[in-house]
């Protein structure tokens, strides 16, 4: 399933601040996007995709925002562009993010993506969007499930 949202979806709408003052991260997914889309946390299935407009994840630096989305089962966020802290937090915790610029993907469309080529395909409208290519190190970090598992396995990393 593809969920589509607009511009400037801030971290308070992804996971309200009042739920982040806890050490029990497993409860986050119950409240993800609850003010923006109250049915989301009940209907989301593993592998679902979120598509958004500009500046996705603006606001606070809370890592719980991408974490809540990842825990809910979302596999990738595809947006026109991302707020920078959200972008790096998402990679650090192993949630894929793809920037595709202006798009016309609609709610419920069939969408496929490939991190290694950076191609997003809207099968419903038969359109292709090339995403800004992620550096290989970031793809590797995502494949390991985040920076901590990556470092634990590889002990160090090279940036370029």
């Amino acid at each position, binding site marked *: 399933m593809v969920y589509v949202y607009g*511009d400037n979806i801030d971290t308070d709408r992804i996971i309200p*601040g009042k739920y982040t*003052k806890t050490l029990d991260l497993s409860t986050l997914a119950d409240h993800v996007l609850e*003010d923006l889309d109250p049915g989301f946390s009940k209907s989301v299935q593993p592998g679902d995709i979120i598509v958004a407009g500009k500046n996705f994840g603006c606001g606070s*630096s*809370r890592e719980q925002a991408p974490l809540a989305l990842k825990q809910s089962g979302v596999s990738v966020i595809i947006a026109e562009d991302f707020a920078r*802290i959200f972008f790096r937090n998402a990679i650090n915790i192993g949630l894929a993010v793809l920037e595709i610029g202006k798009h016309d993907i609609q709610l419920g469309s069939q969408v496929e993506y490939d991190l290694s080529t950076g191609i997003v395909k809207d099968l419903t409208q038969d359109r292709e969007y090339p995403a800004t290519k992620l550096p290989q190190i970031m793809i590797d970090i995502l494949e390991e499930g985040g920076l*901590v598992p990556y470092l634990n396995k590889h002990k160090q990393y090279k940036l370029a």
Partner: protein
Amino acid sequence: MGMTITEKIMAKQSGRDKVVPGELVWVDVESVMTMDYLGKTCFDKFRSLGKTEVFDKSKVICVSDHLVPPPNQKFATMLNEWREVVKKHDIEYFYDLGRQGIAHQIMVEQGHVLPGTISIGTDSHANTYGAAGAVGNAVGVTDAAVAMATGKAWFRIPEAVKFHITGEWQPWVMAKDLSLHIMGMMHWNGHLIYKTLEFTGPAIESLDMAGRMTLCNMTVDLGAKNGIIAPDQITADYLKDVAKGDWEMINSDEDARYEAVYEIDVTDLVPTVALPDKLDDTVTVDQLKGTKFNKAFVGTCTNGRLEDLAMLAKILKDKQIHRDVNMIVVPASQTVYLDALRAGHIETLIMAGAAVDTPSCAACAGIHTGVAGDGDIVLSAGNRNMKGRMGSKNAQIYLTSPAVVAASAITGEITDPRTISI
């Protein structure tokens, strides 16, 4: 071709002669800051890397600011867990309740941020550090945990945008008005995302550290990676007694490359207000004349400094806050609180009918000390006005400068501070 101040700092801290935008670098960090409600998670993540000792016990800075003083048992218990983990790691600088302040204020005021260096913190307004001629960057707990273990963080060298600020600051116009003006001018339309914003020009050179901190603080809300002001004599005077290490005054080269340069003359700048829910929906104060509100709030890492409290006291001296307005003032740190007390500002504010509370993030974090309820209309000198930010999603938050909050608190309606008599 030359480099910008941010490029030069990133080159220096990554051991390179030159860096260019887009490059990924692994830099040395001066300080890593984390706070009460995230700190335990941060240390847990640090330990999941197989580490028990932080890279430098004097460079991991721990601050209690969001949850203090605890308004309920849950937060009291979280704070106890936090204190335990800080103690266990033998952290040298722990600013806990009693010596507390908002983390970003503490980082600059206590000299943990130094010109020519890079510091990171697990809260979005770490951009504030740019006021000290440093690169200040907000990160999540994973980045902070890795930096606590290694003393390093990765960055992509950002493209630069310059704001050249000229003219004379007018009475009652503050750095906050410039921040909000830029917010309205640039919007959240994506073209400042990931950028480094550099503020230059005579109106920046004449700005005090408090104003510089306000300006750099809100660059995160423009989507920027960092905001920075070249260090000068004002920076050096501020840091000389508090700096926790050596620093280097680094400035941009004359032939540095900027993606865009915007010129703003502050002579024409007037008090500015952001309308509820959207930071970039700004108007000049005169357009809201007569708008009623019931809560006034001044504090936060954006506007809780001595100069901000002095502005409130100047306007509220021998005046009374309107009977329909509840005003809360929360100094940004214990140092600010004590300085304001000694200067007589706290007495002035209490005489005028304001409630003054102990330093913390207070209602700006939406969890205690004056949170907003259903139907509240808040006039705030904080930094964010999204729905639910200060508590109820059925409250409205107007954001503005301390001067506008003070002038308006007297009349009970949004009021241009230039129209009041003091």
